């Protein structure tokens, strides 16, 4: 017996809705899996700067999607010479060796200089004021031990899938590192 048009229509409509629901469920499932996979990837690795490849070009300060940049100068006190004349702190031709703004190299005054005992001074980075321009890093590396260097600070990095500073870096110094070891720290050179 041939199906009546009414019966056929009812069956097709049910099939259509069943298919639609199945399709939506599959889509939602795929999206969830994709999201989980992305999250898992993001949890496994994060972006970081290799300080031995960084050329202190200044682009980290202007290319990061955050303002100020998530890139900050960090200071290895174990490597630092605690110099009275710190070339990471003072302008190359600073008129005087004191903390006056006219003598300071940092464009935002983000380095704090403290006398420990003559002639040793300690230099600390004020991260909230640091913009990651690497000017101090270049000054330290030109004359000193290279104890100042840049790192992406993961308390503020939003971990973009397509990191803007990694793309702009001229030496490909920014790479993915394990999230449980998110910093590439400098070591004191062995003799």
């Amino acid at each position, binding site marked *: 017996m041939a199906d009546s*048009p009414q019966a056929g*229509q009812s069956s*097709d*409509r049910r099939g*259509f809705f069943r298919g*639609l629901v199945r*399709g939506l469920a599959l889509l939602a499932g795929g999206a969830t899996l994709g999201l989980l996979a992305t999250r898992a990837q993001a949890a496994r690795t994060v972006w970081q700067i290799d*300080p*031995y*490849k*960084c*050329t*202190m*070009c*200044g*682009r980290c*300060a*202007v*290319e990061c999607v955050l303002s100020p940049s998530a890139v900050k100068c960090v200071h290895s006190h174990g490597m630092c*010479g*605690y*110099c*009275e*004349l*710190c*070339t990471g702190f003072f302008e*190359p*031709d600073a008129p005087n060796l004191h903390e006056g703004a006219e003598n300071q*190299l940092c*464009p935002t005054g983000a380095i704090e200089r403290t006398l420990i005992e003559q*002639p*040793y001074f300690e230099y600390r980075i004020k991260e909230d004021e640091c913009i990651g*321009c*690497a*000017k101090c890093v*270049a*000054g330290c*590396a*030109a*004359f*000193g*031990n*290279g104890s100042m260097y840049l790192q992406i600070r993961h308390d503020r990095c939003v971990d973009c*899938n*397509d990191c*803007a500073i990694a*793309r*702009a870096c001229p*030496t490909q110094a920014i790479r993915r590192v394990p999230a449980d070891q998110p910093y590439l720290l*400098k070591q004191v*050179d062995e*003799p």
Partner: protein
Amino acid sequence: MSLRWLTRRAFVTRTLSLLGLGAAAGIKAGCDRTERRPPRQVPQAFRYDITDLAADDGGLPRFQLSRSVETGLLGAAAMTTAPSGNLAVAHNEQVIVLDPAGRAVRRWATDHRVLALHVANDESILVADARRVHRHNAAGRRLESWTVGDDRTRLTGIAAAGDDLFIADAGNRTVSRYRGGDRVWRLDGFHVPSPYFDLAIGPDDLLWVAHTGRHRLEAYNSTADLVRSWGRAGMAITGFSGCCNPCHFVVLGDGRFITAEKGLHRVKLHDAEGEVRALVIGAAALGIDVNTPACAAEQHSCVPPGPLVADLGDDDGGVAVLHPRNGGLHVLEPPTELA
């Protein structure tokens, strides 16, 4: 009815397809966002540029370059002149003897990285690694070794006069005098921010020490008393640049000095009172870009190396300069008025 059913399905299918295409396009656009954006300009205020300072010769007379040789001795740590007129160079775990033309005439391997060396009048060679001193004969055979200092010790300078041995230890910031293996005295209190701490014995038997953190050379007598000093900090050619210079120096036979600076990469001639009299060689002639950071140029270290200097002791007053960054050896002669 059948046509209406087909139309509805087609409508939904097309709608989903369009949504899918739109989502794909959106994701692609998001991924390409930084790629499409032109690079942003780095403000001049963020740039560290010492090119002009390195190029400044203060109008001083310049030494004349008589020859340059590519030695390939990248990362060389020390250089000194042998009584024969040859140059002894410490390069990683080797000592290489170069003739005045820069040709290697002899080389021998050690089991340690050589950081400092001194050639005695009998052509025996004292070499220092981080914590030990070794005496070798001219052929390179080790005659004796002894350990000095402690775990913090990093030897960077060595000199000998008669039975006395003088050692600079940048790790402990001390200078010690030894005789017969026993320490006679030790000088403390130096400010040595980076592992450059050179010393030399002058023609008047004074021990000259590069007090780099103070930007001066200091002379000590045989009883460890400071008797003279000169030098000041400054990027101008009259001063010692950066945090800690001079990184290397030699005292000439007439009491004048040749000093080398890292950072600005320049070598200068000073009179016996310390006044700068001539530029021996600057960064440009050494083939060094002063704005290229050490980490990018040196694969082995981020501590910027400075030029190594040696007095050739010839009649022309020749000076040899070897730069560890590119291995270039340059022989220069003073202008006539300063010869």
